[in-house]
Structure formats: C-alpha cells, structure tokens
C-alpha cells in the first residue's frame, strides 16, 4: 500500500493506483475529458492537471495517468493547477465552442467566454482521441485515426474515404464525450411502427423488461467480440465474473421419470388475412403489439400512440381474427374475447378515444368475466355484433379521410356498416406451437385434428397422454387462458410427481414378453408398438419389452414372424385351443 495526502486528507491506496482513481475513491472530483475508465489513459486534454509536491519540489502532472508514489502531497485545486486547467479549458472553448462537455466544464470553472480566436463556431471535436482509441483498443477495427499535425489535426478514416475496416458498431460515437460523432442509418430502413421496432441498443441486454428470469444475454449479431475478437468490456466490468463469451449451447442428457409438455402456442399471423391490412397499414396492429404499447415499461412507456406519435381518437378491436373461421382455424381460441375487453377498458381509461368492439359471441366464460363485460357496456364501448370483412383506407365520405375504415355486417341490425377509426387492434387467436408436430413425434404422443396435443381422455385424463409419464399443460393441449393453464399445470405436475413418489408400479397383467432364443432381432415389433415399449438391444441383437410401458394390446405378438413375442394369458396356443374347443360337439 502507498500513502499520500490529497487536498489535506491522508489516505492509503494500493500500488499502481493513479491520482485520479485515488481522488475518486475519496470522492474528490477532478474533471477530465479524454479519460475513460475502460481505456488506457491518453493524457491529451490536460484538463485533469493537479499539483504534486514531492520532496519539496512541486510540479504539475496529469492525474489520469500519473501513478501515486509514496509520500507525495496532491493538491487538486491549488492556484497553479487551477490556472493551467482554466486556460486549457478556455483554449478548448476556442477550439470546440459547440461541445457541451466543454461548455459545462467552462461554466464550473467560471469561464464566461474565451479570449482566443474561434476558428469554427460549430466545431464539436476536442481531439481527445477517445474514438480512435476505442476503435483500436476496444473494438480492434482500427478504422479511424488522427491525421495531419498541430492545429490541422483531425480524426478521420484514411483519406476521408468510407473505410472497409469499420464494422459500424458505433463504439466511437458511444465514447465521444461531445457528440462530435453521430450515427446515421443510411439505408433508411422502413419500419412499420417505429416505437415497436425494438432495435438492439446494446449487444448485452435484457430481452424485455419483464423477462423472467430478468437475466441479460449477449446478442451475437451485435456484439463486437464476435466480429473482431476484441472488446469484452462487459466481462471486465462484471464484478461477479458472470460473463463468459466462450459459453456455447450444449445438449444435456437428463434422465427423467416423467415429462410435462408445456410447449405453448403460436399467435395467429395476422398477415394471413390480407383483407385486414396488417403489414400494409401502420396503424393496424396485433393484440401482442397493443400489449407492448400499453405496457408501462414498453417502448412508449404505456402511452397509446399512433404510428405518427399522436393519440388515437377512435379505436376498433376485431375479435376472432384467425379463429372460428373455416378458412383458418375452426376452433375458438377462448382467450381473445376477454383480452379484447381488457383492451377496450384500458383504452377508455388511458385515452378518450371512442372504442368499437366487433365480436361474434362474447365468450366471458370465467369467474367475474361476465361482470367485467357489463362494466364495459357502461363505459361506453360500442359493441357491434358481426364478423369484420375488410379494413381499408379508401375513404368514401370525407369523414373517413385519413382514417382506417372497418367494413362489417352488423348482424343485429342486418346491415353493412363502415366505421372509420384511427387504429385497429386485431385480437389474433392461438395456434399450436411452431414445432408442435416435431414434439409430438419425439414424445410419441398424438395430436387431435386441430394439431393441439391429444389428452388421454377429455374427462378422465385431461393432463396425461397415451404414453405413460408424458403429461400436458397449457395452450399446447388447447387454447386456454392463464387461470386454466395454471390449474392444468398444477394437475400435470402432481400427476407426474405421483408417479415418481409412489415407489411401486402396477404392471398390466397381460403384457407381452419376448423369448430371447426365438427372437431374431428383426425389429418388426419395435416400430409397431404405439407405446414405444419395445427397444432393440444392440449388444445382444434382440428386441426387449419394457414391462412398465407395455399396455398388453398384443399387436406385436400377432405381427411377430417367429412367434418369439407372446402375450401372457392370450398365448397363441391358448387361443388355438379355444378355437378347437368351439367345434367340439
């Protein structure tokens, strides 16, 4: 440890600490412009100068790079240091008048205006080199550097041309203290709903603010390390050393007793219904996008805004988008009515927009759901019973000018109606997960007609499947809302656990067995068994039946060419004897 006095305070710091770091530890503020904790000190701006007295001799040094030595006395605001610092800042004010960081520093030091000649009033760059060093030390792209000398010195790419070395990671503009380097999207990518476009702001981030678990991840496309092998700043600053760039996905084999399939659902893709204009009109959004809009920690902070940023005056909510429709999904997605009502309520509460709700049947099946519907009726939401045929922006009357017109057949008054609104929310239904069939094949469970997983029995076995030990929970079995899902998940878990802790296991009495000597290993039975109870034993070259899984249907027995597979109590010779017995007079 090294001891020193700084501004009169006696402190102890460990070897190799710089004066700036020592000051910060004892919350003494020393201004600096070209210093950044994540970069090597460059000591160019000379704003962090302090007076150091060592063995009676006083000299002015830059605190950002000078290491502390035994017994020195540091004065951060001595008259001599302040003089040098003020003049340096005043000179920077002349060189880069438009840089806020310098203006603030000048204000703190009490410098009104600069006595030196200003070459270019809107110059922002103070030539601190943070961008050049970041590009070299952190990013490793070396795309920009200083060129020219003395007063002509500038930062630029070689010959000012567009540089191939630049990987567009914007680290330079991130490190720039004065905003001299700005980032511009030259391609001008068209974004449907600006606020909703959650472009990556930083390569390591939390997926969404309510993500469970709330753990950041590294987005490999945006992360510099995967481009140039450098950077790893996040690794340096993480005290818990939790960052490891070399981590890879790995396949883990887990031996489990039972599996609860809760692979969820896929929202219906609203683009499939061309007539509703999702993807063509910026203000036609899906229910999920509306959830993001209305979410307090969402991109708009919970304010409901149109694409152009204004508040909508009228909003249409369309039910059964992609559900109860033989062109798409015949089944009812069960949850849309209630979340649409929730939307209507939120719209009434947060905006003074007129809400229209287009429904076929209001399915408020749950506890307290119907009462909630009646509240909506009182709140002034206009409910129109009928399926929406088309959403268009072609205005017929000038009232519809600039609005989205919803054409619907109002079945209660038996007439076609045209309702102009600012925004349309499509209450999209639920569809089986993207890899539903893949999972069914892997777990050897079957799907019902609408490709949701088939439960063993709608009443007697709603959470189990035909394969013992495989259970179902949630929307993968059929669309359901959160309360039902939670209930079902509880059931599935308890059934799974009941299997586990029972200790003993009742076997079917009539299961089949394979005689080792007769079996030739032809494996016909293996693919036949609906319960994957038969596995082929590589070493011995024969098939074996797992008694716990065999249900005793006997299909394999009748298919076995060599008669190796026999079903207890229904052996072939037993049945032959029965046949013979029939014809005995």
């Amino acid at each position, binding site marked *: 440890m090294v001891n020193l006095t700084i501004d009169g305070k006696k402190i102890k710091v460990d070897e190799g600490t710089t004066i700036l770091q020592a000051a910060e530890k004892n919350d003494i503020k020393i201004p600096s412009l070209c210093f950044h904790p994540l970069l090597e000190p460059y000591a*160019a701006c000379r704003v962090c100068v302090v007076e150091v007295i060592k063995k009676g001799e006083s000299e002015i040094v830059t605190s950002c790079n000078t290491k502390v030595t035994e017994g020195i006395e540091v004065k951060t605001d001595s008259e001599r240091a302040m*003089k040098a610092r003020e003049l*340096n800042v005043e000179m920077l004010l002349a060189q880069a008048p438009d840089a806020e960081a310098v203006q603030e520093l000048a204000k703190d030091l009490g410098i009104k205006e600069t006595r*030196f000649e200003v070459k270019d009033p809107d110059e922002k760059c103070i*030539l601190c080199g943070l961008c050049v060093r970041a590009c070299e030390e952190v990013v490793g792209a070396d795309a920009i550097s*200083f060129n020219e*000398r*003395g007063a002509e010195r500038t930062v630029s790419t070689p010959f000012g041309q567009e540089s191939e070395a630049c990987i567009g990671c914007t680290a330079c503009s991130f490190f720039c203290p004065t905003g001299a380097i700005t980032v511009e999207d030259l391609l001008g990518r068209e974004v449907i709903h600006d606020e909703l476009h959650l472009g990556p702001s930083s390569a390591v981030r939390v997926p969404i603010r309510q993500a469970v678990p709330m753990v950041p991840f590294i987005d490999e496309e945006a992360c510099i390390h995967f481009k140039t092998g450098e950077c790893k700043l996040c690794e340096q600053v993480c005290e818990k050393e939790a960052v490891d760039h070399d981590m890879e996905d790995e396949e883990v084999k887990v031996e489990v007793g039972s599996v609860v399939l809760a692979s969820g659902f896929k929202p219906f893709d609203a683009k499939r219904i061309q007539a509703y204009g999702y993807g063509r009109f910026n203000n036609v959004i899906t229910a999920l996008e509306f959830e993001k809009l209305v979410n307090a920690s969402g991109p708009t902070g919970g304010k409901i805004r149109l694409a152009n940023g204004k508040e909508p005056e009228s909003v249409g909510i369309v039910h059964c988008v992609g559900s109860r429709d033989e062109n798409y999904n015949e089944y009812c997605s069960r949850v849309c009515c209630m979340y649409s009502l929730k939307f209507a309520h939120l719209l009434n509460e947060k905006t003074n927009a007129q809400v229209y709700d287009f429904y076929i049947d209001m399915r408020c099946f749950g506890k307290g759901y119907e009462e909630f519907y009646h509240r909506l009726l009182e709140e002034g939401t206009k409910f129109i019973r009928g399926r929406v045929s088309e959403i268009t922006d072609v205005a017929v009357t000038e009232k519809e000018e600039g609005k989205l017109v919803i054409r619907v057949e109002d079945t209660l008054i038996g007439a076609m109606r045209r309702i102009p609104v600012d925004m349309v929310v499509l209450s999209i239904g639920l569809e089986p997960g993207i890899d539903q069939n893949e999972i069914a094949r892997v777990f050897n469970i079957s799907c019902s007609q609408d490709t949701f997983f088939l439960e063993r029995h709608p009443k007697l076995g709603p959470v189990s499947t035909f394969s013992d030990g495989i259970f179902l929970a949630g929307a993968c079995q059929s669309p359901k809302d959160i309360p039902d899902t939670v209930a079902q998940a509880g059931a599935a878990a308890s059934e799974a656990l009941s299997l586990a802790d029972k200790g003993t296991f009742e076997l079917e009495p009539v299961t089949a067995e394979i005689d080792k000597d007769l079996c030739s290993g032809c494996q016909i039975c293996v693919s036949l068994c609906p319960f994957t109870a038969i596995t082929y034993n590589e070493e011995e070259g024969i098939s074996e039946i797992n008694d716990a899984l065999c249900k005793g249907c006997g299909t394999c027995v009748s298919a076995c060419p060599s008669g190796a597979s026999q079903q207890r109590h229904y052996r072939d010779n037993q049945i032959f004897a029965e046949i013979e017995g029939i014809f005995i007079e």
Partner: protein
Amino acid sequence: MEKANEKAYRLHLMVCAGTACVSNNSFGIKDALEKEINKQGLEDEVLVVTTGCNGFCERGPLLVVQPGNVFYQQLEEKDIPHLVEEHFLKGRPVKKLMYKPPKEKSPIPILSDINFFKKQVLIALRNRGLIDPEKIDEYIARDGYSALAKALTEMEPKQIINEVKDSGLRGRGGGGFPTGLKWEFVSKSSTNGQERYIVCNGDEGDPGAFMDRSILEADPHAVIEGMIIGAKAIGASKGFVYVRNEYPLAVSRLIKALEQARGYGLLGKDILGSGFDFDIKIVRGAGAFVCGEETALMASIEGRLGEPRPRPPYPAEKGLWDNPTCINNVETWANVPVIINRSADWYSNIGTKTSKGTKVFSLVGKINNTGLVEVPMGITLREIIEDIGGGIPDGKKFKAVQTGGPSGGCIPAKNIDLPIDYESLTEVGSMMGSGGMVVMDEDTCMVDVAKYFISFTQNESCGKCTPCREGTKAMYEILDRITKGEGKEEDIDLLEDLAKSIKDSALCGLGNTAPNPVLTTLKYFKDEYEIHIKEKKCPAHVCRELNTYTIDEKTCLDVGHGCDLCRKNCSANAISGETKTAHQVIQEKCIKCGVCYDVCRFDAVKVK
C-alpha cells in the same frame, strides 16, 4: 585510390566537403585542384583529400594544406592554377587566399593561429578536416575503434558504465541527463528475455542547428564506435540511427561507414572475435520536428504516428516495442570512444563542476565567423562571440544571443560574461538545447524573434495535447497582433499566463519549452513589447506595419537632386514629386514595404 595508400606523398590537400562548402562548389575546387596537379605533374607528390565539415563555414570553400596546416578560404576555381603552381610546386604559400580577420592587416596562414580555431577544443570533432570520412582506414589510423577493442576485450559492461558515469558526460541533445546514469538504468531494467535497443537521435530539428549533421558527415565512425561501446555496456543487440532525411550527404556517408564497418567485422556477429553481436539500422525521419522528442522518435521507428506519449514509463524501462531502450544524441555517442580511450579523469577535468567535456555550437546569425565551434564547457559567451565569432559585422552593437533553438531562450547582451553550461543557461531562462547559437544585433526586433520561434513550434506541434496545440496558436495570434500594431494592454499578462500554463501542463518537451523564447524576451526586453503595444512602434524597424517612412526634403533636393528613384520603385505609387523636386511619402497610400528606404542612395528616406 588503392595505390595511393602505399605511396608516400609530401603534401595532402584537405578540401572541406561539408554540406555548406559543397553547396559553395567545394567539389568544383577539388576537381580543379586535381586537374592542375596533374598538369603540373605533381600527382605523385600531392594528394587531394575530401574531408567532413572543417567548421569555419563562413569562409567556405576551405582548403587546409598539410603538413604545415596552411589555411586557404573562399577559394574559387580561377584561383587554383596560381595556387597549385605557387604553393604546391614552388612552396610559396599564397597570401591573398589566406584568412584575414576583418580588423587585421595581414592574413594568418596557419589554421591553429586563427582566432576562430584557437579557443576550440576538439573531442567530438577530433577528426574533422584530418580524415576522409569515407575511408575507414583513416579513422582507424587516428585511434579509431581502439576504444572499441579495449571495451570489448578488456572491460566488463559495468566498468564501461562506470567510466562514462565518472567522466560526467551529459546528454548533448539538450536535456543534459547524465549519460552514465541512463546507461545504468537501461542495463538494470529487466527484459525477461526480449532485446534491448540503442538509438542515436540524429533528428536535429532546431532551425539553424547543424552540429549533428557535421559530425555525421565528418566522422560517422566515431558515432558508430560509440554506439557499439554503448551496446556492449547495456547488453543491446540492435541499434538504430534516426537521421533526418533532409541530410542526404550525412545519410550516404553513414551508409558507406556502416558497410565498411560491417566489412571489417566491426558490426554484425562476433565483433572483433569477442562473441558480442550488434548491428545498426538507419531509420530516416520524415521531417517532423516533434520526432526529435524521444518517445515520438520511438513511435516513428515503430512505424506509428510520430506522437509523444506520457512518461513515465521512460524509454530506459519501456522503449521501442516496450523493450528497454537507450537514446542518446549524435554528439553524445561521438564523445564515448574518447572517454574510453583517454579515461574519465582526463575528460572530467575539461569543463565546469557540473557540466563536463565540450559542446559543439552552431554559431549563426549576426556574427562574422559563422560556423561550427566545439568549445569546452564554462567558456564565456564573450569569448565565443568576440574571440571565436570575430564580433558582430558592420560594427553593429551585440544585442542578444538565442541558445537551444525553439526550446531555448534569448540571453541579453548584459549577460555576455556568462560562462556557458547546462545550469547557467537554464538559470537565465534559456537552455543548452542541441547547441544552436543565434547571435542578434541592434537591428533585431525581439518581439519578431519571439513570434518566429513560436510560429515554428506551433507549426511543428504534433497537436496531441491542448496546451501545446492551442496554446502556441493563441500565443502566435497575440504576438502577430502586437507586431501589426493591434496589441492590447493586457496582452503581456495574458502571454505570461499562457506561457506558464503551457510550460506546466504540456505533455512533452516540445510543449514545455516552446514558451521559453517568449518568456525570456518578455523578461529581458519587456520595454520593446510595451513600445510595440503603446506607441505602436518597432524600434528595430523590423515589424513593417509599425514603420512610417518619410523623406527628408532637404537631403532629397540638395544631395539627391530629386533623383526620383524612390518614386519609380514604389509599387503603391505612394510617393509624390518628379525629378529635380523634393519628394514626399503619401502616408495613406504607403504600404510600408520599405523599398524607398532601401533604394535611396542618399539616405533621404527616414524610417521612424
């Protein structure tokens, strides 16, 4: 010329072939001599030898006839036939070609009697004018590489370092850091296996300084031998000579010297059979003054942007490619062989208590004997200017001398009896620097001198740190205003504040010393600043915007009879009157170019 080595000659004509004399056609003189000698049939008796810079550049092209040390100067090709016949054939030296000091009547034939040479003590320039730099044998003849042999075979590295430490030799580049100490740091710093490097700093960016150039041109082997001895002392295996690309003759002579040294096995593997390997590479500077600063120099050698970096770590610890590096100036290296040969005690009793040995100065400016002088430390300014320099030309009064180039300062006439060494110069606000010594007389405007030097450092600043990049620009702008008559009252204080702040907070040597010229001129010649600001006048009439030109009508008419020459030459037709009438200057139109003043033969034009 091989044959010439064996044949004994009775006369050697030492023709000076330093850059200055070469530019004065000294090669022409050499050819003329050879032609004339052949014509006279003396080619077997008289040998013409080209040497490095002789030092007395004012009087170039120069010839010294040996034996006899007869000194001829300002030779022209037409003098040669007469010289060859008279002196070389008939043995009668030719008086009219000899050096005649301005005030004396008769010329001084013998070189060592001439004042310019008398007080000089030659160590770094020991072989100047005596050997042909492009022949290694001649260097060896004068004890060349004997110090190396001694160092490699009889001395341990520690002994060499102690010898240099005891000699009191200090860095001749300007810093004055004790060389022995630096060698010790480098040899002690751990290198865990990597190499150590030796660097010779031949950047010499100061305007008007040509010491290193002359040493490299006159005696490259002295530098090479010094570097090998240094390498042996600190255990380095690779050396670099960083020399300005603006010195083509020095570079070519250095290249020839390196090849010859390598040929003799004095460089490369197993030098002189001692098992010590060392080789030297030449790196040419790209013309940036800042690359004279050691860390910028190293960056340039590494191929990076020539830009200084904060110290510590000093090059002795972390230099080229982060390995320990020992950087010394050309002159420092040239001194090393002599110290090893003649011992530290002999060296340490030359010079003063704190500054040992000699220093080479390039004496320029308003001085009669412009040239290269090597004087012992402690010599007074008066001896240099009056005895060696031969006083100020045209009877002008000595005003000040500027030492240390753009990092140095101006020393006023009143300090003429100041003994010259590192400490004395720094006390008066200047510094030893590389050795540039610019003499100024009464016609020099100190504000203009300060402006010149600050414009130099401002232009050469690398631009990395704010005080130097912006500070020198700010000071230049203020000084420029003052010299244009727009100086403000508070400018002097602002200049002083700026100078102090830049000196305090600049990152490298260039920035720390750039304000010295301004500070010293302010300190000693503050009155001139005040006249420029308050009265908007320049006493030395150098700042043209402040001059007012008038014509004394009486002299113009009576003496010049209105010769009308000034009016004809005035480009702004700001002069009224015709021939035979008195002329006047129309002040509004006058652009103060001063042509009338220069042209008028009758001193009718007055400048105030």
